[in-house]
């Protein structure tokens, strides 16, 4: 018995191979610095409440009442809760079998799934079947469940955009599948070129990989672009031609910061295209309560909707979901509230609109301040954040900096981000964690720091970058570049 079961050498290789940069080296170093008393600005995770965004009042009132249902019997409850929150709490409790403390159906409460289906119908103009909607503990769990069903072994490939949100690379790696990259075109505002897709698929097939599914993140993470309807049509046609399941990560659908490219769901475009394609492409769309103007990350609530999935496959997905018993019930109620917020005329309506609008408009301004701030540095180029929560500037690193990184045993963008962290307390994620073309370097920040702190943050970024460039700039230093 020389090797013990949990010795590092004997661990599952898939576990060791998996990488998840959002909480990787930079984050750990930032946490250390924070412990030492340094002020850290965490822009590594799309985690709005951690950066001071206040939760929306109404949903929190409803969920608090569901937590403490005995309050509903107290004659004084109306002194601290508005009547519509009380009514909603009663409504949601009536949808449960035993309140927040009972496991629900493994797919989620039927009543909430019905509300989700109605939301999708309103959004897209096409019917949605609650039986094909599963509630999950956050969208990540849903992605894992679906990929687990699809990936059989390393010969199964999943098309994933590069740059991508590392949930996909990490999960594919954990499940022992193969990630087949397709590159987004930075100079074309992170556009998706179907020719690129074809090439990626052909190359993977020539290596014996069966490409089974394609991931799109719309609006993009980390890249922030909103896909156009024409582009989505091309993608769907491509998936149809190639027999690929389309996994539509649409968790940022509420986060849109311009008017030219609104969010359009893959489901709507698919239905618009009509038969036969609308009956052929298998589509799974993901959504969450963690993003949008809700930002309720800590609740772990989400759903996925399946289109054109055969019932027997859906049953298998149900079976796997049932092993985890049920998603947490309070997050299911948050999801219900998110898809059916207060209506005009409700007591809480005005406040709800004020709060949500305030958050979205501020995010829109912050997206602008950040993009402009990055672009004001000569060695940085940054596409505008059309949607989602991130800015993904390209940092042109001089060869001296790349040399220095090599000497320090770091990837150049990791080296840069660590220096940035030490100098300014800004905790970002290096582009290499998301994937990027060889020889170019990026970092990802969220656009979530408080608006009033934004100018100062961008100022300290610029100051750091200037100093970095004068230290490592080739020959003449940064000022003469």
């Amino acid at each position, binding site marked *: 018995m020389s090797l013990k079961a949990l010795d590092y050498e004997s661990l599952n290789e898939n576990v060791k191979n998996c990488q998840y940069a959002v909480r990787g080296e930079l984050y750990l170093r930032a946490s250390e610095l924070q412990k030492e008393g340094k002020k850290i600005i965490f822009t590594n995770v799309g985690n709005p409440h951690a950066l001071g965004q206040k939760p929306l009042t109404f949903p929190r009132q409803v969920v*608090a009442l569901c937590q403490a249902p005995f309050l509903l019997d107290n004659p004084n409850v109306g002194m601290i809760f508005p009547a519509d929150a009380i009514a909603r709490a009663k409504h949601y409790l009536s949808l449960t*079998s035993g309140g927040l403390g009972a496991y629900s159906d493994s797919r989620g409460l039927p009543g909430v799934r019905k509300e989700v289906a109605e939301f999708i119908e309103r959004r897209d103009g096409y019917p949605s079947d609650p039986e094909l909607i599963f509630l999950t503990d956050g969208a990540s769990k849903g992605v894992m469940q679906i990929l687990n*069903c699809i990936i059989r072994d*390393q010969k199964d490939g999943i098309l994933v955009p590069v740059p991508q949100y590392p949930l996909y*690379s990490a999960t594919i790696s954990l499940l022992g599948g193969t990630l087949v990259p397709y590159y987004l075109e930075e100079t074309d505002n992170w556009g998706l070129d179907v020719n690129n897709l074809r090439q990626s698929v052909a190359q993977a097939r020539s290596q014996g*990989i069966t490409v089974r599914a394609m991931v799109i993140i719309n609006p993009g993470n980390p890249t922030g672009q909103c896909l156009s309807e024409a582009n989505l049509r091309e993608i769907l046609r491509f998936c149809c031609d190639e027999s690929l399941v389309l996994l539509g990560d649409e968790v940022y659908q509420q986060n849109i910061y311009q008017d030219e490219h609104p969010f359009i769901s893959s489901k709507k475009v698919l239905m618009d295209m009509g038969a036969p394609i609308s009956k052929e492409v298998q589509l799974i769309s993901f959504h969450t309560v963690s993003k949008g103007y809700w930002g309720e990350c800590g609740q772990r609530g989400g759903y996925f909707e399946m289109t054109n999935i055969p019932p027997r496959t859906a049953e298998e997905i149900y079976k*796997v979901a049932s*092993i985890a018993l049920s998603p947490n019930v309070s997050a299911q109620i948050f999801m219900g509230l998110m898809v059916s917020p207060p209506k005009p005329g409700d007591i809480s309506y005005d406040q709800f609109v004020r709060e949500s609008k305030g958050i979205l408009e501020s995010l829109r301004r912050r997206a602008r301040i950040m993009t402009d701030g990055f672009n004001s540095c000569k060695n940085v180029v940054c596409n505008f954040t059309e949607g989602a929560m991130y800015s993904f500037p390209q940092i042109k690193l001089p060869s001296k900096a790349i040399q220095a990184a090599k000497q320090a045993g770091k990837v150049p963008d990791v080296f840069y981000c660590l220096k940035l962290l030490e100098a300014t307390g800004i905790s970002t994620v290096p582009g290499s964690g998301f994937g990027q073309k060889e020889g170019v370097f990026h970092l990802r920040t969220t656009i979530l720091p408080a608006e009033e702190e934004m100018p100062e943050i961008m100022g300290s970024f610029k100051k750091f970058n200037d100093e970095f460039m004068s230290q490592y700039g080739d020959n003449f230093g940064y000022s003469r570049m």
Partner: protein
Amino acid sequence: MRRFLFSQAKRSVLDQTRRQHHTSRRFLSFLPSLSPHLPAPAPPLLSLSRFLSSTSKMSASDSTSSLPVTLDSINPKVLKCEYAVRGEIVNIAQKLQEDLKSNKDAYPFDEIIYCNIGNPQSLGQLPIKYFREVLALCDNTSLLDESETHGLFSTDSIDRAWKILDQIPGRATGAYSHSQGIKGLRDTIAAGIEARDGFPANPNDIFLTDGASPAVHMMMQLLLSSEKDGILCPIPQYPLYSASIALHGGSLVPYYLDEATGWGLEISDLKKQLEEARSKGISVRALVVINPGNPTGQVLAEENQRDIVDFCKEEGLVLLADEVYQENVYVPDKKFHSFKKVARSLGYGEKDLALVSFQSVSKGYYGECGKRGGYMEVTGFTSDVREQIYKVASVNLCSNISGQILASLVMSPPKPGDDSYDSYMAERDGILSSMAKRAKTLEEALNNLEGVTCNRAEGAMYLFPRINLSKKAIEAAEAAKTQPDAFYCKRILNATGIVVVPGSGFGQVPGTWHFRCTILPQEDKIPAIVNRLTEFHKSFMDEFRD
């Protein structure tokens, strides 16, 4: 990154060629198959080989359909796994429940009683008020600033909510936390473990999870690389283990609990099964012990636990201790002892034994299943391994915050002198003593049935009676293409509206038949349940008498 992507692609192609040689072995499945393939009457101790050689059709032939995801092209490990607690019988029950609404007269019962799952609050158990007060205040923190709140909430719940909020960075209950869980809450849990065991606990050893199940999955993911990696599991077992092992492509190595000695665990049987598995080239990585037992309800004696710890230490096995029922002990002659306490009492430290203890907010007297809260305490792991666990946890970002808060509350409930202490104790003792009463009543009723024997539920939430089925009943089941115990359970459902789970979902000695029934229906329902079960069983026996 690019290099990573391409090297991965390259590696997979290389592996693929390498794999061609192993294909036959790969399809000769070692995956555990609990229910469907067990042969009828066989000697009471099943040989391991039977478990391992249950060949099944695993070839994932390409679909004739153009759809990429169909039943024949999904991951065969997914197809393979079974989870009976929510299987076919529950689906039938849900349909019946729907139909009952409009078709009341068509059935000999007026409601479906779910005894298939340990889900106490769905059967009317009330939550512990203090816990919910704290959670409501943490969810809606603006309440803390209002004077009226003091009239509606207990003082200590308000104090506790403040204390918890101060442990959360930015008081943001809507933010992702550290992937292991909020540090302050882990401190509280560690202190609770220390108070329980009398040995120190380290908050950095604690990983908060969405219920105990994801923690079990995480450990399986870490331990299982292929079907050559085995996990020793009790039979009967809670099917989370068989399902998780199947999903992760490992082998379940069964050891049998002895029904005749109150579901006793024999070290000699463990040794035998371990050696047999090893002789088949299986590298056994861990031992699962469920204490108190699910579905079997036994509480292990401390001496037995010491032997188990020694066995794991000698054999280099990770001890996976499912201790989610630690609060549920109903008999005065038994007490729950954590494996960590037992190991430390033997003088074993970090270097001697790798031990994982699972705990949940879903069980105990609190029964907060819907909150999905739980934790695992991992000890005896090197730091590089712990980093891997952290990484896997981080892919899912974090577990839900109110589940985390609740996990800290159950490990540190009100203390003497606190405002809520008396009412809390009354609620807690009321629930536990009522469960003990229900367990006793049901056990006695089951033992009164012809051909039924039932061990007492010393702990947990279940009874697992054995039913002697007649030849005629078994033949009828075969004709209906179901397992005899599933046949019996479906009959119960159709005749009484009571949902129980067939023993084949948990594994049982071949040729024996059982079902699992929770003790959770509220006390006022128990007499009716006993009557209906008794009446049903009598007519079933009459119908199928040889």
